[in-house]
């Protein structure tokens, strides 16, 4: 187990800056997720940590070693590839034993350690199978066992769930998380799936166009996104354009609605309100941040309903309300109601 530190790493492909001055530190035993849309540089970053591609600038440190110039086979890393990259000509046992054989581990130890690793992923029974005789989920577990058996300083996961079907993905998500916490192994995972990132990561790094947008816990990124990209990439949100007033205690939208909010920075040009933080009240309700509105569209989603409501000033907001037997009947398009915006959940955002 070790820390991983990226210090201002950059990668150019010709004229394209794939990764632009990225710095981050992964603590021992932490699961850090690199999250972003395709082409944001997350995989390139992971491949530089693994040593599959060189950095154009900056340093990569694993533990107290500067590995920037070290080839991957001297970095002591475990990698799980998107397509698993099992050795098709070797049995499950030999796939897992591969890294131990490269380390000249004695034969008796290989047998026991491979056995333990396969037990960890519950595949002892399939040790003599070839990869092509396994299902996708089983192949993925072999890949995980193969990466873990060498006791790497850091585990790198490149979109590990993207080739699994939706139901399996949910189980494997928890399985990987359980193993990672049990072994307390420093892990860096790449994904474009925000649910996956939120549910697995201790911390998330949101990347866009090769640059770090924000680093933080899933809660911090969801509740207090620092810019419009993060706010819109993670979860659903309403954005109202305008500017803060009274030292940021109130945000006045372009249409003239004054909304009390969590302290908005003077440069904020947009107010973010998550749809589930808006309360729906009777049309007669009054109080701070209560606004009369008209229900325009109702979309039933099963576990919740999505309401599009229009304020008197013309702004439209999306509101999600959990489904309840009573609520399901209550909404009809065109009806009058009031909404209350929680000031703590209304966040000023830089950029528009």
């Amino acid at each position, binding site marked *: 187990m070790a820390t991983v530190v990226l210090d201002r790493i950059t990668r150019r492909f010709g004229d394209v800056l794939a990764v632009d001055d990225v710095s981050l530190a992964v603590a021992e035993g932490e699961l850090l997720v690199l999250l972003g849309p395709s082409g944001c540089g997350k995989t390139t970053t992971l491949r530089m940590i*693994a*040593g*599959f591609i060189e950095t154009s600038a900056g340093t990569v440190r694993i533990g107290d070693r500067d590995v920037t110039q070290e*080839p*991957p*086979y*001297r*970095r*002591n*890393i*475990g*990698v799980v*590839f*998107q*397509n698993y*990259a*099992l*050795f*098709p*000509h070797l049995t499950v046992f030999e796939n897992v034993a*591969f*890294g131990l054989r*490269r*380390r000249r581990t004695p034969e008796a130890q290989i047998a026991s350690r491979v056995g333990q690793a396969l037990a960890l992923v519950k595949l002892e029974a399939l040790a003599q199978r070839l990869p092509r005789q396994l299902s996708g989920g089983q192949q993925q577990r072999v890949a995980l066992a*193969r*990466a873990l058996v*060498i006791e790497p300083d850091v585990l*790198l996961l490149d979109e590990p769930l993207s080739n699994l079907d939706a139901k399996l993905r949910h189980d494997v998500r928890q399985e990987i998380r359980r193993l990672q916490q049990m072994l307390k192994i420093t892990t860096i995972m790449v994904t474009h799936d925000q649910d996956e990132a939120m549910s697995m990561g201790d911390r998330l790094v949101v990347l866009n166009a090769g640059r770090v947008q924000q680093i933080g816990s899933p809660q911090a990124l969801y509740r207090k996104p620092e810019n419009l990209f993060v706010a819109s990439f993670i979860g659903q949100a309403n954005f109202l354009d305008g500017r803060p007033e009274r030292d940021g205690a109130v945000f006045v939208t372009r249409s003239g609605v004054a909304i009390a909010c969590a302290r908005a920075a003077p440069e904020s040009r947009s107010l973010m309100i998550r749809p589930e933080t808006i309360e729906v009240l009777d049309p007669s309700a009054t109080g701070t941040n209560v606004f009369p509105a008209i229900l325009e569209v109702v979309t039933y989603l099963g576990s919740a309903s999505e309401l599009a409501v229009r304020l008197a000033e013309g702004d439209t907001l999306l509101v999600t309300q959990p489904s309840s037997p009573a609520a399901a009947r209550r909404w009809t398009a065109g009806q009058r109601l009031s909404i209350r915006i929680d000031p703590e959940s209304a966040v000023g955002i830089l950029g528009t």
Partner: protein
Amino acid sequence: MVRGTRFPERLQRFAFQGTVAGTFVFMALPIALVLWLSFFRNEILSLPPDGYSLRWYSEMFAQRQFLSGFWTSLQVALLATFCGLVVTTPASFALTRARFRGREAIVQLLMSPLIVPAIVIGSGLYMAFVEFEVRTGLPVVGSTWGLAIGHILLTIPWSLRLVTASLAGVDRSIEEAAASLGASPPVAALKVTLPLIWPGLVAAALFSFVTSFGNLEISLLLVTPGNTTLPIAILQYLQWKIDPTIAAVSALQIAVVGTGLLVTNRFVSLAKVV
């Protein structure tokens, strides 16, 4: 797919099947003919046969030049195949895995024996060998090694095409996985990549062997009376006589190559590689 039974559909199908059958016959006929001829009793090749006998096979074994020619061809073909693969496999790695200036030029250079007429290669080699002999006093012309060197040129394009095609089909992430597990590039190549391209190597070896074994033009200028290849022994025999001995020799050659193909096909499915 349901194929339909209207007249144009049936006509199309008939035309297609006819073409396939015709092509097969066209390809197999010469082989069948040679095998048939080798059993004729006639002294001079003519149809219909007077009767059948095995005398040409015993005749073939009585003629020492055929057996020694066969032996030389076998040695040269094995040497050329082996050396060709030893040279082209690393070259294929470099050409598929690395991007560098002059890559295309090197590919063209290695493929050039297919473009340059073999007789020209033979003449060029002959002159170079003679020059080499004059300077060093070492015998090259007429030696098995001299022949093999010429034939390596023939095997290189085949090996290169087949091995690079196989390598291009190997998922790079499998090699990266090997590297992440502690395998240096030579170890990864040996333990992972080579086993994966094994069918391609076998196919390359087979094609190289067949090309070398049947080659006439390059050998023509590099053999000496005591040390001839089988195709040249056949050619020389044909200058004096046309009797079914030649057919028997050819049958032997077909048997060798055919056995090679069948045996190989048991280990790797050639249809998948070529």
